[in-house]
Protein backbone atom coordinates (compact mmCIF):
# COMPACT_ATOMS: atom_id res chain seq x y z
CA UNK A 1 0.00 0.00 0.00
CA UNK A 2 1.47 3.32 -1.08
CA UNK A 3 0.59 6.94 -0.41
CA UNK A 4 2.48 9.72 -2.17
CA UNK A 5 5.08 7.15 -3.20
CA UNK A 6 5.71 6.25 0.45
CA UNK A 7 5.28 2.67 1.61
CA UNK A 8 2.52 2.50 4.23
CA UNK A 9 2.17 -1.25 4.63
CA UNK A 10 1.57 -4.60 2.91
CA UNK A 11 -1.83 -6.22 2.30
CA UNK A 12 -1.65 -9.96 2.85
CA UNK A 13 -4.52 -11.99 1.35
CA UNK A 14 -4.85 -15.72 2.01
CA UNK A 15 -7.54 -18.30 1.52
CA UNK A 16 -9.08 -20.74 4.00
CA UNK A 17 -9.45 -23.31 1.24
CA UNK A 18 -6.99 -24.24 -1.46
CA UNK A 19 -7.28 -21.94 -4.47
CA UNK A 20 -5.10 -20.20 -6.98
CA UNK A 21 -5.38 -16.39 -7.48
CA UNK A 22 -5.65 -15.49 -11.14
CA UNK A 23 -4.74 -12.17 -12.78
CA UNK A 24 -8.28 -10.93 -12.30
CA UNK A 25 -8.07 -11.50 -8.51
CA UNK A 26 -4.67 -9.79 -8.30
CA UNK A 27 -5.98 -6.81 -10.23
CA UNK A 28 -8.97 -6.49 -7.90
CA UNK A 29 -6.85 -6.83 -4.74
CA UNK A 30 -4.42 -4.22 -6.00
CA UNK A 31 -7.32 -1.82 -6.25
CA UNK A 32 -8.44 -2.74 -2.72
CA UNK A 33 -4.91 -2.08 -1.43
CA UNK A 34 -4.83 1.26 -3.21
CA UNK A 35 -8.11 2.38 -1.63
CA UNK A 36 -7.12 1.10 1.81
CA UNK A 37 -3.77 2.90 1.52
CA UNK A 38 -5.46 6.21 0.79
CA UNK A 39 -7.83 5.80 3.69
CA UNK A 40 -5.03 4.86 6.07
CA UNK A 41 -2.87 7.79 4.93
CA UNK A 42 -5.76 10.22 5.46
CA UNK A 43 -6.56 8.73 8.86
CA UNK A 44 -2.93 8.81 9.94
CA UNK A 45 -2.40 12.39 8.86
CA UNK A 46 -5.43 13.62 10.74
CA UNK A 47 -4.43 11.64 13.85
CA UNK A 48 -0.90 13.00 13.58
CA UNK A 49 -2.26 16.47 13.13
CA UNK A 50 -4.52 16.20 16.14
CA UNK A 51 -1.66 14.82 18.23
CA UNK A 52 0.67 17.62 17.10
CA UNK A 53 -1.95 20.23 17.98
CA UNK A 54 -2.53 18.63 21.39
CA UNK A 55 1.21 18.47 22.03
CA UNK A 56 1.67 22.08 21.00
CA UNK A 57 -1.11 23.20 23.30
CA UNK A 58 0.45 21.33 26.22
CA UNK A 59 3.84 22.92 25.60
CA UNK A 60 2.95 26.59 25.72
CA UNK A 61 1.85 27.75 29.16
CA UNK A 62 -1.92 27.38 29.59
CA UNK A 63 -1.81 30.26 32.02
CA UNK A 64 1.09 32.66 32.32
CA UNK A 65 2.66 32.83 35.79
CA UNK A 66 1.58 35.55 38.18
CA UNK A 67 4.75 37.59 38.71
CA UNK A 68 4.49 40.64 40.96
CA UNK A 69 5.62 43.78 39.18
CA UNK A 70 5.15 42.32 35.72
CA UNK A 71 2.20 42.26 33.34
CA UNK A 72 2.36 39.33 30.90
CA UNK A 73 0.32 38.53 27.82
CA UNK A 74 0.80 36.05 24.98
CA UNK A 75 -0.86 34.66 21.87
CA UNK A 76 -0.37 31.51 19.84
CA UNK A 77 -2.07 30.89 16.50
CA UNK A 78 -1.61 27.76 14.40
CA UNK A 79 -0.97 28.28 10.67
CA UNK A 80 -3.23 27.74 7.66
CA UNK A 81 -5.51 24.68 7.92
CA UNK A 82 -4.48 24.40 11.54
CA UNK A 83 -0.87 23.60 10.67
CA UNK A 84 1.14 23.31 13.84
CA UNK A 85 4.72 24.48 13.65
CA UNK A 86 7.48 24.55 16.20
CA UNK A 87 6.76 27.94 17.74
CA UNK A 88 6.80 28.10 21.50
CA UNK A 89 7.18 30.55 24.34
CA UNK A 90 7.75 30.20 28.03
CA UNK A 91 7.93 32.44 31.11
CA UNK A 92 9.03 31.21 34.51
CA UNK A 93 10.56 32.63 37.69
CA UNK A 94 14.01 31.37 38.67
CA UNK A 95 14.90 30.15 42.15
CA UNK A 96 16.89 33.30 42.93
CA UNK A 97 14.04 35.67 41.96
CA UNK A 98 14.97 36.54 38.39
CA UNK A 99 12.36 35.94 35.70
CA UNK A 100 13.24 33.98 32.56
CA UNK A 101 11.40 33.99 29.26
CA UNK A 102 11.89 32.34 25.90
CA UNK A 103 10.44 32.68 22.41
CA UNK A 104 11.56 29.99 20.01
CA UNK A 105 10.88 28.54 16.60
CA UNK A 106 11.88 25.00 15.64
CA UNK A 107 12.28 24.84 11.87
CA UNK A 108 9.78 22.33 10.49
CA UNK A 109 6.14 21.54 10.96
CA UNK A 110 3.74 19.09 12.48
CA UNK A 111 4.32 16.38 14.99
CA UNK A 112 8.12 16.17 14.55
CA UNK A 113 8.62 19.89 15.16
CA UNK A 114 6.30 19.82 18.17
CA UNK A 115 8.24 16.93 19.72
CA UNK A 116 11.61 18.64 19.23
CA UNK A 117 10.11 21.80 20.69
CA UNK A 118 9.00 19.88 23.79
CA UNK A 119 12.49 18.54 24.33
CA UNK A 120 14.05 21.98 23.90
CA UNK A 121 11.61 23.54 26.30
CA UNK A 122 12.47 21.05 29.05
CA UNK A 123 16.20 21.33 28.41
CA UNK A 124 16.03 25.13 28.43
CA UNK A 125 14.21 25.14 31.77
CA UNK A 126 16.85 22.83 33.25
CA UNK A 127 19.80 24.90 31.98
CA UNK A 128 18.03 28.08 33.10
CA UNK A 129 18.22 26.88 36.71
CA UNK A 130 21.98 26.32 36.38
CA UNK A 131 23.10 29.64 34.95
CA UNK A 132 21.84 33.22 35.04
CA UNK A 133 23.77 34.12 31.89
CA UNK A 134 21.51 33.72 28.84
CA UNK A 135 24.47 33.21 26.47
CA UNK A 136 25.69 30.35 28.64
CA UNK A 137 22.21 28.79 28.74
CA UNK A 138 21.98 28.95 24.93
CA UNK A 139 25.54 27.56 24.58
CA UNK A 140 24.45 24.53 26.58
CA UNK A 141 21.17 24.20 24.71
CA UNK A 142 23.05 24.43 21.39
CA UNK A 143 25.46 21.69 22.46
CA UNK A 144 22.49 19.51 23.37
CA UNK A 145 20.82 20.16 20.01
CA UNK A 146 24.08 19.43 18.12
CA UNK A 147 24.51 16.17 19.95
CA UNK A 148 20.99 14.79 20.23
CA UNK A 149 18.92 16.52 17.55
CA UNK A 150 21.37 16.49 14.66
CA UNK A 151 20.19 18.47 11.66
CA UNK A 152 17.50 20.31 13.61
CA UNK A 153 17.65 24.08 13.38
CA UNK A 154 16.00 26.34 15.94
CA UNK A 155 15.91 30.08 16.45
CA UNK A 156 15.35 31.48 19.92
CA UNK A 157 15.36 34.59 22.07
CA UNK A 158 16.15 33.82 25.68
CA UNK A 159 16.04 36.54 28.32
CA UNK A 160 16.50 36.90 32.06
CA UNK A 161 14.92 39.85 33.86
CA UNK A 162 16.85 41.03 36.91
CA UNK A 163 15.25 40.59 40.35
CA UNK A 164 14.29 44.23 40.41
CA UNK A 165 13.00 43.94 36.81
CA UNK A 166 15.03 47.02 35.82
CA UNK A 167 17.04 45.27 33.11
CA UNK A 168 16.92 42.27 30.81
CA UNK A 169 19.87 40.12 29.81
CA UNK A 170 19.22 38.74 26.35
CA UNK A 171 20.83 36.13 24.15
CA UNK A 172 19.52 35.68 20.63
CA UNK A 173 20.14 32.71 18.35
CA UNK A 174 19.12 33.61 14.79
CA UNK A 175 15.76 34.97 15.95
CA UNK A 176 14.10 38.30 15.18
CA UNK A 177 15.02 40.81 17.90
CA UNK A 178 12.25 41.85 20.32
CA UNK A 179 10.73 45.32 20.23
CA UNK A 180 10.93 47.67 23.21
CA UNK A 181 8.24 50.28 23.84
CA UNK A 182 9.06 52.96 26.42
CA UNK A 183 6.40 54.64 28.58
CA UNK A 184 6.77 57.87 26.55
CA UNK A 185 5.64 55.92 23.49
CA UNK A 186 9.04 55.72 21.76
CA UNK A 187 9.72 52.28 20.33
CA UNK A 188 12.56 50.41 18.71
CA UNK A 189 14.01 47.00 18.01
CA UNK A 190 16.31 46.25 20.96
CA UNK A 191 20.00 46.74 20.32
CA UNK A 192 21.08 43.19 21.10
CA UNK A 193 23.63 40.92 19.44
CA UNK A 194 22.20 38.21 17.20
CA UNK A 195 24.24 34.99 17.06
CA UNK A 196 23.62 31.98 14.77
CA UNK A 197 20.60 29.69 15.27
CA UNK A 198 20.93 26.60 17.47
CA UNK A 199 22.00 23.42 15.74
CA UNK A 200 23.96 25.09 12.95
CA UNK A 201 27.56 25.82 13.91
CA UNK A 202 29.21 23.66 16.60
CA UNK A 203 30.78 25.64 19.46
CA UNK A 204 29.85 29.07 18.10
CA UNK A 205 30.50 31.89 20.63
CA UNK A 206 27.36 33.44 22.05
CA UNK A 207 26.86 36.85 23.60
CA UNK A 208 24.57 38.34 26.22
CA UNK A 209 23.29 41.89 25.75
CA UNK A 210 21.79 43.92 28.57
CA UNK A 211 18.76 46.07 27.85
CA UNK A 212 17.47 48.54 30.49
CA UNK A 213 13.75 48.20 31.25
CA UNK A 214 12.41 51.42 32.78
CA UNK A 215 9.18 51.30 34.83
CA UNK A 216 6.20 51.03 32.48
CA UNK A 217 8.29 49.76 29.55
CA UNK A 218 7.06 46.91 27.38
CA UNK A 219 9.12 44.20 25.63
CA UNK A 220 7.52 42.18 22.84
CA UNK A 221 9.05 38.97 21.46
CA UNK A 222 7.52 37.14 18.51
CA UNK A 223 8.12 34.57 15.78
CA UNK A 224 8.58 35.39 12.10
CA UNK A 225 5.07 34.14 11.27
CA UNK A 226 3.74 37.40 12.72
CA UNK A 227 5.70 39.78 10.48
CA UNK A 228 6.41 37.71 7.35
CA UNK A 229 3.96 37.85 4.46
CA UNK A 230 4.38 36.20 1.08
CA UNK A 231 3.41 39.46 -0.62
CA UNK A 232 5.45 41.89 1.50
CA UNK A 233 8.99 42.43 2.73
CA UNK A 234 9.72 41.68 6.38
CA UNK A 235 10.66 45.30 7.22
CA UNK A 236 7.13 46.32 6.39
CA UNK A 237 5.78 43.78 8.87
CA UNK A 238 8.23 44.89 11.55
CA UNK A 239 7.25 48.54 11.06
CA UNK A 240 3.58 47.64 11.33
CA UNK A 241 4.25 45.64 14.50
CA UNK A 242 6.13 48.53 16.13
CA UNK A 243 3.35 50.95 15.24
CA UNK A 244 0.63 48.68 16.63
CA UNK A 245 2.01 48.28 20.16
CA UNK A 246 0.34 50.11 23.05
CA UNK A 247 2.73 51.44 25.74
CA UNK A 248 0.34 51.03 28.67
CA UNK A 249 -0.74 47.43 28.32
CA UNK A 250 0.74 44.03 27.43
CA UNK A 251 -2.72 42.58 26.78
CA UNK A 252 -3.78 45.38 24.46
CA UNK A 253 -0.46 45.23 22.66
CA UNK A 254 -0.97 41.55 21.86
CA UNK A 255 -4.51 42.15 20.66
CA UNK A 256 -3.63 45.14 18.49
CA UNK A 257 -0.49 43.49 17.05
CA UNK A 258 -2.53 40.47 15.94
CA UNK A 259 -5.24 42.72 14.51
CA UNK A 260 -2.77 44.98 12.69
CA UNK A 261 -0.63 42.23 11.19
CA UNK A 262 -3.05 39.42 10.54
CA UNK A 263 -6.37 41.21 10.34
CA UNK A 264 -9.03 38.89 9.03
CA UNK A 265 -6.59 36.56 7.27
CA UNK A 266 -5.23 33.40 8.77
CA UNK A 267 -1.40 33.20 8.93
CA UNK A 268 0.38 30.79 6.55
CA UNK A 269 2.89 29.87 9.26
CA UNK A 270 2.11 29.57 12.95
CA UNK A 271 2.50 32.70 15.07
CA UNK A 272 3.60 33.26 18.66
CA UNK A 273 3.73 36.56 20.48
CA UNK A 274 4.77 37.36 24.04
CA UNK A 275 4.57 40.76 25.76
CA UNK A 276 6.14 41.63 29.11
CA UNK A 277 5.50 44.97 30.75
CA UNK A 278 7.19 46.26 33.87
CA UNK A 279 4.56 47.84 36.06
CA UNK A 280 5.18 51.42 37.10
CA UNK A 281 5.05 53.29 40.40
CA UNK A 282 1.43 54.34 40.05
CA UNK A 283 0.29 50.73 40.38
CA UNK A 284 -0.23 49.53 43.97
CA UNK A 285 1.32 46.27 45.12
CA UNK A 286 -1.03 43.31 45.15
CA UNK A 287 -0.09 39.70 45.78
CA UNK A 288 -2.03 36.57 46.57
CA UNK A 289 0.03 33.48 47.33
CA UNK A 290 -0.43 30.11 48.98
CA UNK A 291 0.51 30.39 52.65
CA UNK A 292 3.57 28.15 52.44
CA UNK A 293 7.20 28.81 53.34
CA UNK A 294 8.24 28.96 49.67
CA UNK A 295 5.97 31.95 49.10
CA UNK A 296 7.99 34.09 51.53
CA UNK A 297 10.78 34.51 48.98
CA UNK A 298 8.18 35.67 46.42
CA UNK A 299 6.88 38.22 48.94
CA UNK A 300 10.41 39.59 49.42
CA UNK A 301 11.14 39.72 45.68
CA UNK A 302 7.87 41.58 45.14
CA UNK A 303 8.65 44.11 47.88
CA UNK A 304 12.20 44.65 46.66
CA UNK A 305 10.81 45.44 43.20
CA UNK A 306 8.06 47.68 44.39
CA UNK A 307 9.67 49.70 47.21
CA UNK A 308 12.42 51.35 45.08
CA UNK A 309 9.75 52.24 42.50
CA UNK A 310 7.75 54.19 45.06
CA UNK A 311 10.84 56.00 46.31
CA UNK A 312 11.73 53.98 49.40
CA UNK A 313 15.48 54.09 50.16
CA UNK A 314 17.68 51.11 50.89
CA UNK A 315 17.71 51.40 54.68
CA UNK A 316 13.93 51.70 54.91
CA UNK A 317 13.57 48.89 52.40
CA UNK A 318 15.43 46.48 54.71
CA UNK A 319 13.03 47.31 57.55
CA UNK A 320 9.84 47.05 55.46
CA UNK A 321 10.95 43.75 53.94
CA UNK A 322 11.83 42.46 57.41
CA UNK A 323 8.53 43.42 59.09
CA UNK A 324 6.33 42.26 56.22
CA UNK A 325 8.42 39.09 56.01
CA UNK A 326 7.78 38.42 59.70
CA UNK A 327 4.03 38.99 59.36
CA UNK A 328 3.83 36.74 56.30
CA UNK A 329 5.91 34.07 58.07
CA UNK A 330 3.46 34.19 60.94
CA UNK A 331 0.58 33.59 58.52
CA UNK A 332 2.44 30.61 57.03
CA UNK A 333 3.11 29.22 60.48
CA UNK A 334 -0.10 29.93 62.37
CA UNK A 335 -3.07 30.85 60.20
CA UNK A 336 -4.10 27.56 58.67
CA UNK A 337 -4.36 23.88 59.43
CA UNK A 338 -3.01 21.23 57.09
CA UNK A 339 -5.53 22.17 54.40
CA UNK A 340 -3.70 25.48 53.93
CA UNK A 341 -4.93 28.73 52.47
CA UNK A 342 -3.75 31.96 50.91
CA UNK A 343 -1.93 35.04 52.13
CA UNK A 344 -2.84 38.34 50.45
CA UNK A 345 -0.64 41.44 50.44
CA UNK A 346 -1.53 44.96 49.42
CA UNK A 347 0.83 47.90 49.44
CA UNK A 348 0.13 51.60 48.94
CA UNK A 349 2.15 54.78 49.37
CA UNK A 350 0.63 57.87 50.88
CA UNK A 351 2.45 61.08 51.82
CA UNK A 352 5.72 59.68 53.15
CA UNK A 353 4.07 56.54 54.45
CA UNK A 354 4.11 53.03 53.09
CA UNK A 355 1.14 50.97 54.20
CA UNK A 356 1.26 47.21 53.71
CA UNK A 357 -1.72 45.07 54.58
CA UNK A 358 -1.34 41.31 55.05
CA UNK A 359 -4.53 39.24 55.11
CA UNK A 360 -5.41 35.63 55.68
CA UNK A 361 -8.72 33.80 56.02
CA UNK A 362 -7.67 31.33 58.69
CA UNK A 363 -8.24 31.00 62.42
CA UNK A 364 -4.97 31.49 64.24
CA UNK A 365 -3.69 29.15 66.85
CA UNK A 366 -1.19 29.96 69.58
CA UNK A 367 2.43 29.56 68.57
CA UNK A 368 4.17 26.41 69.68
CA UNK A 369 7.76 25.61 70.52
CA UNK A 370 10.40 27.68 72.22
CA UNK A 371 12.34 30.69 71.03
CA UNK A 372 9.34 31.88 69.06
CA UNK A 373 7.43 35.10 69.30
CA UNK A 374 10.39 37.39 68.66
CA UNK A 375 8.79 38.40 65.40
CA UNK A 376 6.18 40.72 66.88
CA UNK A 377 8.80 42.65 68.84
CA UNK A 378 10.77 43.24 65.67
CA UNK A 379 7.69 44.28 63.73
CA UNK A 380 6.68 46.81 66.38
CA UNK A 381 10.14 48.34 66.40
CA UNK A 382 10.41 48.95 62.66
CA UNK A 383 6.81 49.86 61.80
CA UNK A 384 5.42 53.16 63.04
CA UNK A 385 1.98 51.60 63.43
CA UNK A 386 0.79 48.01 63.66
CA UNK A 387 -2.95 47.30 63.55
CA UNK A 388 -4.13 43.73 63.97
CA UNK A 389 -7.75 42.87 63.23
CA UNK A 390 -8.48 39.28 64.13
CA UNK A 391 -11.92 37.79 63.47
CA UNK A 392 -13.14 34.25 62.99
CA UNK A 393 -13.04 34.86 59.23
CA UNK A 394 -9.38 35.71 59.20
CA UNK A 395 -6.73 38.14 60.32
CA UNK A 396 -5.67 41.45 58.81
CA UNK A 397 -2.39 43.05 59.82
CA UNK A 398 -1.87 46.62 58.70
CA UNK A 399 1.68 47.92 58.89
CA UNK A 400 2.49 51.59 58.44
CA UNK A 401 6.06 52.72 57.85
CA UNK A 402 7.44 56.21 57.82
CA UNK A 403 9.88 56.36 54.97
CA UNK A 404 12.43 59.02 54.18
CA UNK A 405 11.74 61.23 51.19
CA UNK A 406 13.45 60.11 48.04
CA UNK A 407 15.78 57.64 49.75
Amino acid sequence: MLADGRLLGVLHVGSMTGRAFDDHDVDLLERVAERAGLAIAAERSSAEHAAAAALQRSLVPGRLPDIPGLELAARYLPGEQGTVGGDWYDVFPLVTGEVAFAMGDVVGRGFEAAIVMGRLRSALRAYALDSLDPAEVLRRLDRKVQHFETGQMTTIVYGVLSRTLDSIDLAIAGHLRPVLVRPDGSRETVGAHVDPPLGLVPGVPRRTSTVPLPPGALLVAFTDGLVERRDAVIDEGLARLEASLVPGSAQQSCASAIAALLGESWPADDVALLALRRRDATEPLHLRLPAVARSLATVRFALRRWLPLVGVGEGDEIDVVLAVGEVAANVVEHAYGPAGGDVTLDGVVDAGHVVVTVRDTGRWRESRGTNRGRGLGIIEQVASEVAVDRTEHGTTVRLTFEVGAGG
Partner: protein
Amino acid sequence: VDDLIRIETDGDHVGIRLAGDVDMANAAVIGARIDDAVANHATSVGLDLAAVTYFDSAGLRVLSVLATRLKRLQIGLRVHAPVGSVARRVIDLAGVTELVQVADDPA
Protein backbone atom coordinates in the same frame (compact mmCIF):
# COMPACT_ATOMS: atom_id res chain seq x y z
CA VAL B 1 20.95 25.67 50.25
CA ASP B 2 24.42 24.75 48.95
CA ASP B 3 24.78 28.27 47.56
CA LEU B 4 23.85 29.77 50.93
CA ILE B 5 26.33 28.10 53.21
CA ARG B 6 30.10 27.64 53.04
CA ILE B 7 31.91 25.71 55.75
CA GLU B 8 35.68 25.61 56.27
CA THR B 9 37.28 23.62 59.05
CA ASP B 10 40.77 24.64 60.17
CA GLY B 11 41.98 22.38 63.00
CA ASP B 12 39.75 23.11 66.00
CA HIS B 13 38.11 26.12 64.36
CA VAL B 14 35.02 25.90 62.17
CA GLY B 15 34.35 28.87 59.89
CA ILE B 16 30.82 29.19 58.49
CA ARG B 17 29.74 31.78 55.95
CA LEU B 18 26.11 32.36 55.09
CA ALA B 19 24.93 34.33 52.06
CA GLY B 20 21.60 35.23 50.48
CA ASP B 21 18.16 35.06 52.11
CA VAL B 22 17.68 33.06 55.30
CA ASP B 23 14.01 32.49 56.11
CA MET B 24 11.54 29.89 57.37
CA ALA B 25 11.92 27.90 54.15
CA ASN B 26 15.61 27.15 54.65
CA ALA B 27 16.53 27.99 58.27
CA ALA B 28 16.01 24.44 59.56
CA VAL B 29 18.27 22.97 56.86
CA ILE B 30 20.92 25.60 57.52
CA GLY B 31 20.74 24.88 61.25
CA ALA B 32 21.20 21.16 60.60
CA ARG B 33 24.19 21.82 58.30
CA ILE B 34 25.84 23.93 60.97
CA ASP B 35 25.22 21.25 63.61
CA ASP B 36 26.79 18.62 61.33
CA ALA B 37 29.79 20.81 60.64
CA VAL B 38 30.72 21.37 64.26
CA ALA B 39 32.58 18.29 65.50
CA ASN B 40 32.79 17.57 69.20
CA HIS B 41 36.51 18.41 69.33
CA ALA B 42 35.98 21.89 67.91
CA THR B 43 36.91 24.73 70.27
CA SER B 44 35.62 27.72 68.33
CA VAL B 45 33.03 28.54 65.70
CA GLY B 46 33.00 31.66 63.54
CA LEU B 47 29.71 32.54 61.84
CA ASP B 48 29.94 35.18 59.13
CA LEU B 49 26.60 36.82 58.32
CA ALA B 50 27.96 39.84 56.43
CA ALA B 51 26.70 38.56 53.05
CA VAL B 52 23.22 37.64 54.26
CA THR B 53 20.55 39.61 52.38
CA TYR B 54 17.53 38.66 54.50
CA PHE B 55 17.39 37.44 58.07
CA ASP B 56 14.34 37.26 60.31
CA SER B 57 13.18 35.47 63.44
CA ALA B 58 13.60 32.09 61.70
CA GLY B 59 17.30 32.89 61.36
CA LEU B 60 17.44 34.27 64.91
CA ARG B 61 15.96 31.00 66.14
CA VAL B 62 18.78 29.04 64.51
CA LEU B 63 21.29 31.50 65.90
CA SER B 64 20.04 31.39 69.48
CA VAL B 65 19.68 27.59 69.48
CA LEU B 66 23.25 27.35 68.20
CA ALA B 67 24.54 29.85 70.76
CA THR B 68 22.85 28.03 73.65
CA ARG B 69 24.12 24.64 72.53
CA LEU B 70 27.70 25.79 71.94
CA LYS B 71 27.78 27.51 75.31
CA ARG B 72 26.82 24.25 77.01
CA LEU B 73 29.53 22.43 75.04
CA GLN B 74 32.02 25.17 75.94
CA ILE B 75 32.70 25.91 72.31
CA GLY B 76 33.27 29.60 71.57
CA LEU B 77 31.00 31.37 69.05
CA ARG B 78 31.79 34.60 67.27
CA VAL B 79 29.24 36.07 64.91
CA HIS B 80 30.43 38.52 62.29
CA ALA B 81 27.61 40.91 61.42
CA PRO B 82 29.00 44.40 60.72
CA VAL B 83 26.95 47.49 61.47
CA GLY B 84 24.82 48.23 58.39
CA SER B 85 24.38 44.57 57.48
CA VAL B 86 20.89 43.11 57.32
CA ALA B 87 21.65 40.45 59.92
CA ARG B 88 23.07 43.03 62.37
CA ARG B 89 19.91 45.12 62.10
CA VAL B 90 17.77 42.13 63.04
CA ILE B 91 20.09 40.98 65.82
CA ASP B 92 20.05 44.48 67.33
CA LEU B 93 16.27 44.82 66.97
CA ALA B 94 15.72 41.50 68.69
CA GLY B 95 18.13 42.45 71.47
CA VAL B 96 20.28 39.34 71.22
CA THR B 97 23.55 41.17 70.50
CA GLU B 98 24.99 40.05 73.87
CA LEU B 99 23.88 36.46 73.54
CA VAL B 100 25.74 35.83 70.31
CA GLN B 101 28.81 38.09 70.78
CA VAL B 102 28.52 40.00 67.55
CA ALA B 103 31.77 41.32 66.16
CA ASP B 104 32.29 43.97 63.53
CA ASP B 105 35.51 42.40 62.27
CA PRO B 106 35.51 39.08 60.38
CA ALA B 107 34.98 35.99 62.52
